[in-house]
C-alpha cells in the first residue's frame, strides 16, 4: 500500500481523461469504445444466429445490462481493496468449488452449478477473477520476481481450484482459470529456466493425464481436431460444418441473415461457441478482421493499463486479465477454425450467455479500476 507514495506522477496523455463523466464513473473510454462496438456487432450476429429471435436478443441485452452494472461497480472499488480482499475471495471461491460436487446441480452430465434458490451460480466463474487477484497478492507479498518457494506456493494456489474444476468436469474453464493464475506468474518475471522446466514437466505429465484424468468425450474432442474427416457425422461434424461456414463466406460474406450453414442448422452451437462461424459466413473475412481488430484494441488497451499501472499488484492483475481475455479470443476463434481442440470456450462478448459476459465485464471493471486509480494518483 505504500507503492503509491513512491510512484512519480506520470505524464498521462490518456484521452479518456478528458471526459468528466467517464472520470466520475471510473470508466476507461479507450477500453469501453471497442467493447461497445464488439457488443453492438455481436448482437447483430446473434440476431442472425438465432434466426431473428427478438427474445434471444432481449435476453442477451439483459445480460449486457447486468454485466455493465457489474463492470461499473467493479470499477468503483479501489485497487487497494482488491488486494486486501483477494485472499478471502479466493478462499471463498475454493470452498464453493469444493462444495459443487457435494451439493451442486448437474447439467449435460457435468456438475458445474450451485443453486442459490432462484439463481444458479458457477463458482468456477468467480475463480476466473479470484485467481489472478490471489496470485498477484501472493507475489506482491512474497517478492517479484518470485523465488522458488513462493513460486511453488503460488503453483499450489493455481492447481488447487483448477483441479476442482477439471473434475466437474470442465476442462476448458479449468485451463482458463489455471492460465489466469499462470499469467500472473509469467508477468511477475518467473525465471526463464523455471518456465522451460515447467513446460517440460507439463509435457511429461500429459501422458498420465491423457490416460487417467480426461474423460472419453474430452479425449474425443482432442482427437477430432487432428482428423475431423474420420467421423463425418459424429465428432467431426462440428468442425467440418464450421469450416464450411467460414470458408464459404469468402471476402465479403453471404450477407447478414443470408448464411445458409447457420440458418439451415448445419452449424452446431451457432449462438454460443460457434458464433464466429456465423459472422465469418455472413460478413466474410472483412468481418472477421474487423472483429479481430476490436479484440486487438481491447487487448492493447489492457496491456497499456498494465504497463502504465503504478503498483506491481495492478500490473500483474491488469496484464493477467488481459491475457486471459486474449486466451478466450484465441481459443474460441482457433477452435472454430479447426486449429485448436474444441474445448467449449465462448467467443468473448459475442456468444450468447450471461455467465461468461458478466465475468468478462467484471474483469474490465477491474481493469478500469486500475486505470482510473492511476489517473487519480496522477492528478
Amino acid at each position, binding site marked *: 500500500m505504500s507503492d503509491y507514495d513512491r510512484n512519480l506522477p506520470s505524464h498521462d496523455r490518456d484521452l479518456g481523461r478528458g471526459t468528466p463523466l467517464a472520470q466520475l464513473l471510473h470508466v476507461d473510454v479507450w477500453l469501453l469504445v471497442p467493447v461497445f462496438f464488439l457488443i453492438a456487432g455481436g448482437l447483430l450476429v446473434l440476431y442472425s444466429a438465432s434466426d431473428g429471435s427478438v427474445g434471444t436478443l432481449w435476453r442477451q441485452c439483459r445480460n449486457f445490462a447486468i454485466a455493465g452494472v457489474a463492470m461499473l461497480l467493479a470499477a468503483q472499488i479501489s485497487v487497494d481493496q482488491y488486494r486486501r480482499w483477494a485472499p478471502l475471495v479466493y478462499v471463498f471461491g475454493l470452498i464453493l468449488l469444493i462444495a459443487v460436487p457435494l451439493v451442486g446441480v448437474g447439467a449435460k452430465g457435468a456438475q458445474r452449478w450451485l443453486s442459490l434458490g432462484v439463481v444458479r451460480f458457477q463458482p468456477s466463474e468467480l475463480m476466473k477473477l479470484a485467481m489472478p487477484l490471489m496470485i498477484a497478492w501472493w507475489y506482491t507479498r512474497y517478492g517479484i520476481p518470485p523465488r522458488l518457494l513462493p513460486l511453488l506456493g503460488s503453483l499450489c494456489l493455481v492447481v488447487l481450484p483448477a483441479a476442482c474444476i477439471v473434475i466437474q468436469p470442465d476442462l476448458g474453464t479449468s485451463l482458463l482459470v489455471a492460465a489466469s493464475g499462470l*499469467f500472473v506468474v509469467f508477468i511477475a518475471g518467473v525465471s526463464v529456466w523455471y518456465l522451460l522446466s515447467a513446460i517440460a514437466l507439463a509435457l511429461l505429465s500429459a501422458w498420465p493425464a491423457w490416460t487417467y484424468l480426461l474423460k472419453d468425450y474430452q479425449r474425443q474432442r482432442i482427437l477430432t481436431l487432428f482428423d475431423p474427416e474420420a467421423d463425418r457425422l459424429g465428432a467431426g461434424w462440428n468442425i467440418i460444418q464450421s469450416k464450411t461456414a467460414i470458408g464459404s463466406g469468402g471476402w465479403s460474406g453471404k450477407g447478414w441473415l443470408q448464411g445458409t450453414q447457420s440458418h439451415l*442448422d448445419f452449424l452446431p452451437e451457432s449462438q454460443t461457441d460457434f458464433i464466429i462461424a456465423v459472422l*465469418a459466413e455472413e460478413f466474410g*473475412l472483412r468481418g472477421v478482421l474487423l472483429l*479481430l481488430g476490436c479484440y*486487438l484494441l481491447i487487448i492493447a488497451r489492457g496491456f497499456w493499463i498494465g504497463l502504465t499501472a503504478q503498483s*506491481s499488484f495492478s500490473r500483474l492483475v491488469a496484464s493477467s486479465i488481459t491475457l486471459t481475455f*486474449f486466451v478466450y479470443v484465441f481459443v474460441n476463434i*482457433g477452435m472454430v477454425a479447426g486449429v485448436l481442440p474444441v474445448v467449449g470456450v465462448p467467443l468473448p462478448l459475442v456468444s450468447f450467455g450471461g455467465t461468461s459476459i458478466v465475468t468478462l465485464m467484471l474483469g474490465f471493471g477491474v481493469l478500469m479500476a486500475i486505470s482510473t486509480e492511476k489517473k487519480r494518483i496522477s492528478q
Partner: protein
Amino acid sequence: MFVSRDVLRDTHREAAINRQRVVFAGFIVLSALAMLAYRYYDLQIRNYDQFLTQSDRNRVRLEAIPPTRGLIVDRAGRLLAVNEPTHALAVVIERVGDEALLFQELQSLIDISSDDLERFAERRHRRRPYDPVPLKLQLSDEEMAIIGVNRHRLPGVTIEAQLTRAYPHGSLLSHVVGYVGRINEREASTIDAENYRGTLHIGKVGLERWYESALHGLVGSQNIEANAHGRILRVLEQELPGDGATLSLHLDLDLQRAAAEALGDQRGAIVALDPRDGGILALYSNPGFDPNLFVNGISQRDYAALRDSADTPLLNRAVQGQYPPGSTIKPMLGLAGLELDLVEPDTAIPDPGWYTLPGDSRRYRDWILRIRGRGHADEVDLKMAIAESCDVYYYDLARRMGIDAIATALAPFGLGEKTRVDITSEQSGILPTSAWKRERMGQPWYPGETLSVGIGQGYMLATPVQLAQAVMVIANRGASFQPSLVRRVGDKPQVPVARPAVEADEAHWAAVIAGMMDVVHTQRGTAAAISKDLAYTIAGKTGTSQVIGIAQDGVYNEDEISERHRNHGWFVAFAPVDEPRIVVVVLAENGGGSSAAYPVARRVLDQWMDRWLDDWVMGQDDV
C-alpha cells in the same frame, strides 16, 4: 514460511520486469492473432471455392417428383384403372409427445387394427423422425371428419393426401389389367433407380406390368433447399414429371361384362378378338380376384386364401391355362390334309365308330360310339367330320400325316408357341413332335400317340388365347395378327403386328369353313343348339378334352368321377362367316363337355353382333 519482503522491495526493478514480460506477451498476442487471421484468410480466400461448393451441396438437394401413373381405359374410354385421391392417417414421430397416449386416443376415435399397428411399427424404423409415417391407409370420409374435429388432441397426427391405384371393376378385369404393388427388393434391383425415385408402386402382373414403363412415365425433379434435418424449406427450381401414358384398350367393357355373366360360376376362360387386327375385345378368366387388395400390400391371410384356393383364382386361364385343345384343332388339321393332298374335300372314310392301327387290335373309339353305339355315318367326309366332330376321320388322317407333319401343319397357326399377347405370364402350350418326346421323355414316339394328337389330346396342350389366334387365321383365310390388348399408348396407336400368313388353296379354306358353319347351322352339328334365332352366321368348332385317360373300353361316366376330373369343354367360333368381325374362344374347365361352352359363346357373340347388326344391313361399317 514465507517472509514478507515489503520493506526490501525494489519497485523500479519490479516494474521493469513486469513491463518486459508484458511487451513479450504483447508480441505473442500479436503473432497469435496474425496466425488466426491467416487461418481465416486460408479458409475464406484460398479455399473459398471448395467451401462454397460444399455449403451449396449441404443445402441444396435434388428431389424427385414422381409422375402420375397412366390410366387404363376400354375402347370407349371407360376407366378400368384409375388413380384415386385417398387420405392416409400419418404420424410425425418427432411431434408426438406421449406415444402410448396418442394411440389410445386414436383408437378411441377410429378403428385401428392390430395389422395397422404392426405395419406402422415396421415403417417407422425406415423413416426419419420428421417424415410422416402412415398408420392407417384409405380413411373414410367419416373417419377424416372425426380426426379433423379432434385434431387439437392429437399432436403429430396428420392426414396425407395421395394418389392410390384403384380398379373400379374389381375381379371383372383382374386378369387383364393386373395390379400394382409396392416395389419389392428384387424389383428395386432391376428398375432404373433414377426414374423410380419417389415411386412406391410398380406393375406386378397383367397390363400394369407389361406396360410398366409407359404407365409409369418419367420422373420429374426439383432442387429444394433443405436444412440439416432434411426438412424442405423452399423449392429452387423444378422440372415437371412426364406423367404416364393412358392405355386405350381394344377391350370393350360391355362385352367383357357379358362374357363374365355368360360364364357365371363356371371355371374357365373367354377370349374374344377382332380378326381384322387381332385386338382383344374381351379376355376373361374365372375365378378372378379383387386386384385392389394388392395395391397397398395384401394381408397374409388374404393372400394365402387366394394362393391356396383349389380354384386357383390367381391363374389367368386365358393365357396361362394349358389344356388339351381337343377337337377344336380339327379344322386346321383338315386344312393340312387338303393341302398335303392326303384327302380331297369329298374324300369319304368308313366310320364304324372306332379305328384300329394296322397290326394292332386296340380300338381307338369315336366319342359318338358311347352315345349311338355306332359311327357318325357309313362314310364321313371332311365337312361332316368337322360338323359332327368325327374322330375316326381324324384318326385316319393323323396316321397318314404322321406326328411331325401334324406339328409342321399346326405350327403356322401359332400352336406350341406364345402368341406374344401383351400380358404377363403367357404359356406356350405344347405342340408335340417325335423329337420333342425323345428329348422330354427319352422315349420313341408311338403310332397310337399320333392318333391322340389327331383329336387334340395326348401331349398336346394349348391356351385359350392361342386357339383364338388360330381361329383368327381361319376366319381371315390365312392372315392373322398378334393378339393385342392395347390399341393406343397415350396418343400413339399400336400398329397391329401381322403374322406370317398361312398359305392355302381358296377352295380348301372354303371347305373347312363350310364344315365349321355346319357345326352350328346344321341339325347334326355339334353346336346346333345355339343356332336358334340366330341373326347372323357363325362358324365354330366344339371340343371336349379329357382330363384323365379312359381305360381301353372303359366308360366315361360323368356322375362317377369327381368334378375336377370331368372333361373340359371348348367352343371356338367366328362371326359373321363372310365378313368376320369377332373370334370367340370359350373354355369351360371341367365343364363336362362343349355343351358347357357353346351357349356361353353364343351370348358373347350376340352381345357383340347385336349392336352392329342394324348398321350392317344398311351397308355401313363402323366398328
